[in-house]
């Protein structure tokens, strides 16, 4: 059995706390990096939910490490904290595909 933890900004964190989730606050990219590095060493944490917009701003090497990590699994989600930073679902899937198979494809819906 393992735990699920979220590392989010103050507003979104409040919502997930209402849902009963363990949330750690990270209002800056530096705080996010620090929390993520701590979580990478916590053996009972299985899933970490992160802010999609902030994850794009962390060092690329760490971002790759998070993408490849299986224990814990890191999942970036759209927090809607700032609309201009949000990635459309098609673009998110296209990024996933590019990382997965190495080709850029355009998803038409």
């Amino acid at each position, binding site marked *: *059995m*393992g*735990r*699920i933890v979220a590392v989010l900004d103050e*507003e*979104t964190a*409040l*919502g*997930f*706390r*209402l*849902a*009963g*989730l*363990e949330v750690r606050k990270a209002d800056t990219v530096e705080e996010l990096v620090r929390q993520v590095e701590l979580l990478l060493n916590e053996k009972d944490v*299985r*899933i970490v*939910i992160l802010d999609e917009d902030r994850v794009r701003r962390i060092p690329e090497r760490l971002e790759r490490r998070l*993408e490849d990590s*299986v*224990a814990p*699994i890191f*999942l970036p*989600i*759209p*927090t*809607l904290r700032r609309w201009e930073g*949000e990635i459309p*679902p*098609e673009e*998110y*899937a296209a990024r*996933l*595909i590019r*990382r*997965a*198979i*190495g080709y850029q494809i355009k*998803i038409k*819906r």
Partner: protein
Amino acid sequence: MQKAGPTRMHLLILKTQEESARKGLDLLRSKREALVREFFSAVDTVVASRDLLRRSMEGAMSALGVALGLDGRAAVESATFAAHRDIPIELTEKNIWGVKFPDIQYKSVIRSGDARGYSVAGVSSYANTAARDFERVLDQILKIISVEMRLKKIGDEIKKTTRRINALTEIVLPDLRLQIRAIRFALEEREREETFRMKRFKGKQAVF
């Protein structure tokens, strides 16, 4: 690759190796096709799930905004202390066509109104709605993880299979064919020499 001596035995061995490599190549190509089909069906699911998550998140954030506006931050924060719980999850491993990916086992995270730890009378319906909406978001997140991990793992396997196909078509098979041709030439040359020697021998016998 190890260079073989120009003998018929080596020629036979190399031909068998070439045949095996060609069969392996066909198998790998079929595997890649199947994986690509599976990959694109997972892509559709990921796009649809992400879209749903985005819309649920929008709803949950606006419900939270209403709760904060009408009840105040202190009241909502107070409800979060009571709402805290452990969400135990278990990761198991699934295997599809040799591709292993994690699968998440968990009990439903959506609670009824009276199971959130706080008194229903003490917390406004706005905060309660926000809590329910965020529980739904959390449920969708847990569903998305398995699909996205499957997509990543299938992608890795496609890359690995493509590398193997390239190694076979670009290195292994051309090298084997080159060796087979070299041995054939050497054997033919040896045969010609033998025929020539036999003719000379016959010619000498005729003289004596």
